[in-house]
């Protein structure tokens, strides 16, 4: 079995010089949940737009002159052309400045960078996606790819965790995803008694999940590190080995090419060797305070 043609291509950075930002324009802004919005971007230069490709799990460096640069995962359909999206939460100086921009504004972009999700390893297998909060954003390109080639994968289940029902990301897309063959279970940490969905941590959903062939299952996750730690514990109890578990890690990425060292995690650089890691490759360093 093969992946879609796109998935077999290496990513295509827009510039040969990895330090050079290119100008992109904000085409649209969609408010998602409080302090989170999705920015649809496009290159001003049509030649660059035609060249640009990314793989699910990769990120771009977004640059605001006079403010700074920030690494943001790509949350768009990898099969889309000329436009793509970043779902961004206001969390620091650059994202605060970004939140004040309007459609039509321009900013700089370098990318894409980083290692993608292991979709080739998922072919023919059951896939569990575990997303906590805004951690769904880097997994959304995976969802689009799974939907585009649904027959090439086994059971696909998306487990979502959020603080409240209002904090669930992309709720308007769930119906389409389910219609495309993805089971979705969501849970929230707190809710009123009117909420008929699940309440409790996302790891409980793993405990309840039917897993007909754990040895043929791949788990991809992104969310708060503590959530991912306990997700691994639950997955192990259900029979998954560490080598079947992948995560997207978040660290203070600044150069994006493994030179500055800000995102160093043990012997690895999250920007260059990640942000997607196989769990057993990174587990020893996730438990070290200060790393």
């Amino acid at each position: 079995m093969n992946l879609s043609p796109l998935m077999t291509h290496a990513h295509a950075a827009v510039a040969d010089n990895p330090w050079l930002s290119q100008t992109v324009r904000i085409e649209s802004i969609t408010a998602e949940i409080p302090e989170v919005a999705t920015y649809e971007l496009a290159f001003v230069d049509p030649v660059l737009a035609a060249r640009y490709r990314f793989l699910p799990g990769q990120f771009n460096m977004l640059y605001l002159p006079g403010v700074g640069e920030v690494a943001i995962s790509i949350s768009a359909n990898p099969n889309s052309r000329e436009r793509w999206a970043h779902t961004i939460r206001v969390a620091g100086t650059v994202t605060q400045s970004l939140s004040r921009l309007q459609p039509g504004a321009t900013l700089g972009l370098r990318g894409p960078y980083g290692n993608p999700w292991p979709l080739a390893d998922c072919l023919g297998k059951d896939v569990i996606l575990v997303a906590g909060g805004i951690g769904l954003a880097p997994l959304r390109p995976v969802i689009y790819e799974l939907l585009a080639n649904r027959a090439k994968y086994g059971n696909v289940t998306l487990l979502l965790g959020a603080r409240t029902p209002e904090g669930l990301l992309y709720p308007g897309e769930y119906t389409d995803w389910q219609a495309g063959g993805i089971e979705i279970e969501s849970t929230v940490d707190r809710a009123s008694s009117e909420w008929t969905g699940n309440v409790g941590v996302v790891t409980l959903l793993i405990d309840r999940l039917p897993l007909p062939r754990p040895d043929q299952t791949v788990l991809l996750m992104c969310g708060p590190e503590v959530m991912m730690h306990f997700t691994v514990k639950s997955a192990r109890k259900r029979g998954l080995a560490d080598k079947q578990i992948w995560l997207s890690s978040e660290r203070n990425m600044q150069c994006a090419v493994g030179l500055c060292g800000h995102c160093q995690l043990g012997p690895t650089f999250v920007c260059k060797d990640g942000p997607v890691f196989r769990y057993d490759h990174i587990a020893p360093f996730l438990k070290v305070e200060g790393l």
Partner: protein
Amino acid sequence: MSSTDPSLAEELCNLQFASGWSDGVVTELAAISKYVEFAAGTIIFTQGAENHDLFLLSAGRVGLDMYVPARGAVRILTLSRGELLAWSALVGDGHMTATATALEPVRAIAIDGARLLDLCDRRHDIGYRVMKRLAWALSHRLVATRLQLLDLYSHTTPHVLQSPVERR
């Protein structure tokens, strides 16, 4: 609504609480158990009320709410197949600490709490198994509650960790 069912012992074996137990132990447990069903929306028990049955959920989901003055009912947890409901019947004084509502049609095995405690007193081998599984279930729920307390998805501005050297 309640009924007896010959498949009760078999279902007990299928649920995590009693999985792996010998036929003899399961038979003893089945003798003090019965199937119960609740329609969606049914309040199974209310916070503060007495309830003397321990429930093992067989199908459907149950919401647990706690009442907070000026806020009303706050949903703290939902339970589904295989999970324990109303453990206060066994380790507490029988007064429920939350209100349980069937969110969808629920089928459960209700175990008479007093008779189960009596069985545990008479048969320490069974008592050990029951309390071990109960402790596992409660510790599991405690960890989950801790994770909820951490409020992992709350929006806090990330800060750069100080190095151990700087902290000294």
